[in-house]
């Protein structure tokens, strides 16, 4: 990526991360659509011998041999038995039955996590700069589990199975499969085993936002990553015949439009189809759109597909308008024709002009790349939101990371739009999704792991979470693109990742596999269900009182019973000092007047490596408030380190 290293402060702190030079080799495993090994992001210049602990392999298949791997890309496997059993044999004329990436997504995610440094990267000149992954010195192992027909659980589980025995250190999964209980979800099941082996598993939260309860990958042993924006934009404004201008975004590069304004038509008025306003394939009338710029509404089909539909009908350009579902969030695309995307408000204003003017005209002005956009980050509207639908007492997502308009490596088997008609080929592409934010955290986790090789996955996650920020430099709270207002812990979790701070978190909330098994006991899982996850006989202790709220998680999700009466919920936690000896003091803030929050003790003094416990008591006044969610924050500080935890309170 060309902007996130600066945005995250990695450019100023390269010498703080020891990475491979200290011998603490870290391998990031990525389960995705495979890899384009010729990408410069997998250049192995300067890499030493492959770690002796590495047990992985580079598997051969269509257009892929062991020679495609090197000292950077040290593993490449593919898993297709599941997809082939379901959909029939893979057609090797259209899809590589090998680790080769025919889609681009896997090359993008793996290069984001751990791509090498590539000078002079850009997409058609947009977002130009030096591209690099988050952990440039980490090794990459790809596990192809996603095919044209989808990603199937039997293949995903087989890939996790192999990744564990290969000895990866971090697993990155930018995929999800709805909301099922942990013992039915193959990603959660596989992630549990990986976690037991010391592997940090980072997963995307999903793109089903801004609806509540829209998260996937919510198991507490998974690091769940939502998406935020960068301080970069690609403005392409709309200039109407009446002199009014509206801002939009675009990554179009190609033949320019004429200097003079062009006629503008609404797709809904250029079709006989009921959903013609959406510019679905074959719905636009060529006689009506030829030589014009077409205004299409977002929804149903892919955004770039709409551009292709307009082009095929003879349109010269497109203005793509958001609807209420997307609000004002703009996602830039590499359209096949001159096109720009505008927000719902701008789209409505353009439509108002269009419907009131006999001969409406428009110009699209492409302005290239703009950096320093504020405020940033803003929580992406598409980023999935809490509460956690499986276990409301565990706050998810865990944190957010850059996931909007991210430049990273791409496959040469497909154009940047992914459309079959797109014959352009690029080294880098710019795309958006929690798929993009997840590998950022995977790579940053690899950096933390290289600096602290003895830390557990939970300790690494805790460091990333407790040092995440929730306010801009001017003190204002992070915003939510979906509302334009302040975001909440249900949107951003612990906040936006700050890897430099995560390197020295001061204290961590650590967890072991047995802690998670106790959590499953608290959920009243049956012995069979627990054995399924644990792969060993585990009996909940009948004499022990298990509590979900006692899982040593770095955040607090309090759920009050609405059935009346005063209500008290206690959360007990254990902090481990990973810094020098010192004294930390607790402070709590909350926007919920109905709940009293106390911390006992309020002060903790630590020796080096010492563990200390504390209890947070949440006391509801008894009446259920009109607003059913409240939010707050607990911070422990020694004057230097701030160990922050978000609090959500629900009735």
């Amino acid at each position: 990526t060309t902007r996130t290293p600066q945005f995250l402060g990695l450019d100023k702190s390269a010498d703080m991360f020891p990475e491979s030079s200290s011998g603490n080799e870290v391998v990031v495993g990525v389960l995705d659509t495979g890899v384009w090994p010729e990408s410069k992001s997998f250049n192995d210049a300067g890499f030493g011998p492959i770690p002796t602990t590495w047990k992985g392999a580079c598997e051969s298949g269509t257009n892929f041999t062991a020679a495609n791997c090197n000292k950077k890309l040290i593993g490449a496997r593919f898993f297709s038995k599941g997809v082939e059993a379901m959909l029939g044999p893979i057609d090797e004329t259209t899809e590589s039955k090998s680790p080769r990436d025919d889609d681009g997504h896997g090359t993008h995610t793996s290069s984001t996590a751990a791509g090498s440094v590539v000078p002079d990267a850009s997409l058609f000149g947009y977002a130009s700069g030096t591209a690099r992954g988050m952990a440039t010195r980490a090794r990459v192992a790809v596990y192809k589990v996603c095919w044209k027909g989808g990603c199937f659980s039997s293949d995903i589980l087989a890939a996790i199975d192999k990744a564990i025995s290969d000895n990866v250190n971090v697993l990155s999964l930018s995929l999800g499969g709805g909301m099922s209980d942990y013992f039915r979800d193959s990603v959660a099941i596989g992630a549990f085993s990986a976690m037991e082996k010391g592997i940090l598993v980072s997963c995307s939260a999903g793109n089903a936002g801004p609806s509540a309860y829209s998260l996937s990958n919510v198991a507490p042993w998974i690091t769940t990553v939502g998406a935020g924006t960068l301080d970069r934009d690609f403005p392409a404004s709309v200039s109407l015949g009446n002199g009014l201008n509206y801002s939009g975004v675009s990554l179009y590069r190609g033949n320019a439009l004429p200097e003079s304004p062009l006629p503008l038509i609404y797709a809904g008025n250029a079709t006989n189809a009921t959903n013609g306003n959406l510019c679905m394939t074959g719905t636009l009338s060529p006689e009506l759109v030829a030589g014009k710029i077409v205004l299409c509404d977002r929804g149903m089909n892919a955004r770039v597909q709409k551009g292709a539909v307009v082009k095929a009908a003879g349109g010269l350009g497109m203005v793509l308008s958001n609807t209420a579902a997307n609000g004002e969030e703009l996602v830039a695309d590499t359209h096949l024709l001159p096109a720009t995307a505008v927000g719902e408000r701008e789209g409505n204003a353009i439509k108002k002009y269009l419907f009131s003017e006999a001969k409406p005209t428009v110009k699209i002005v492409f302005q290239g790349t703009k950096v320093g956009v504020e405020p940033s980050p803003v929580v992406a509207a598409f980023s999935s939101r809490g509460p956690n639908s499986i276990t409301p007492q565990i706050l998810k997502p865990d944190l957010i990371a850059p996931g909007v308009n991210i430049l990273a490596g791409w496959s040469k088997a497909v154009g940047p739009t992914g459309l079959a008609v797109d014959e352009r080929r690029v080294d880098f592409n710019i795309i958006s999704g929690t798929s993009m934010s997840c590998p950022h955290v995977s790579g940053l986790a690899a950096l933390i792991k290289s600096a602290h090789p003895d830390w557990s996955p939970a300790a690494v996650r805790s460091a990333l979470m407790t040092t995440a920020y929730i306010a801009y430099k001017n003190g204002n709270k992070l915003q939510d693109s979906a509302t334009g207002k302040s975001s909440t812990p249900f949107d951003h979790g612990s906040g936006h990742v700050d890897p430099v701070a995560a390197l020295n978190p001061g204290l961590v909330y650590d967890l072991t596999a047995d802690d998670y098994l106790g959590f499953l006991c608290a959920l009243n899982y049956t012995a069979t269900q627990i054995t399924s996850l644990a792969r060993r006989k585990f009996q909940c202790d009948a004499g022990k009182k298990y509590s979900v709220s006692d899982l040593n998680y770095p955040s607090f999700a309090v759920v009050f019973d609405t059935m009346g009466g005063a209500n008290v919920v206690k959360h007990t936690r254990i902090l481990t000092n990973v810094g020098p000896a010192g004294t930390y003091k607790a402070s709590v803030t909350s926007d919920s007047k109905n709940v009293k929050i106390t911390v006992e003790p309020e002060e903790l003094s630590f020796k080096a490596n010492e563990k200390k416990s504390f209890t947070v008591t949440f006391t509801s006044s008894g009446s259920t408030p009109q607003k059913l969610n409240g939010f707050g924050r607990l911070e422990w500080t020694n004057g230097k380190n701030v160990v922050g935890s978000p609090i959500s309170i629900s009735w």
Partner: protein
Amino acid sequence: SSSLKSTYIVHMAKSEMPESFEHHTLWYESSLQSVSDSAEMMYTYENAIHGFSTRLTPEEARLLESQTGILAVLPEVKYELH
């Protein structure tokens, strides 16, 4: 009929493997063969879970799930890129 077969992930309780089996894969195969003459193991899982994936009819899956040593028989789920 094979057209009705779907993929299932079978979770085995390895600790309950009868001593008569020398290797767990033999036990897996034996368990599978007890409900289906034709089903084959697609993957054998060693680290992520103890078990295997295979193609079964719903009736075969139900029968397998009721056997001793079988923890769960979960249907294949399709995941999507984010």
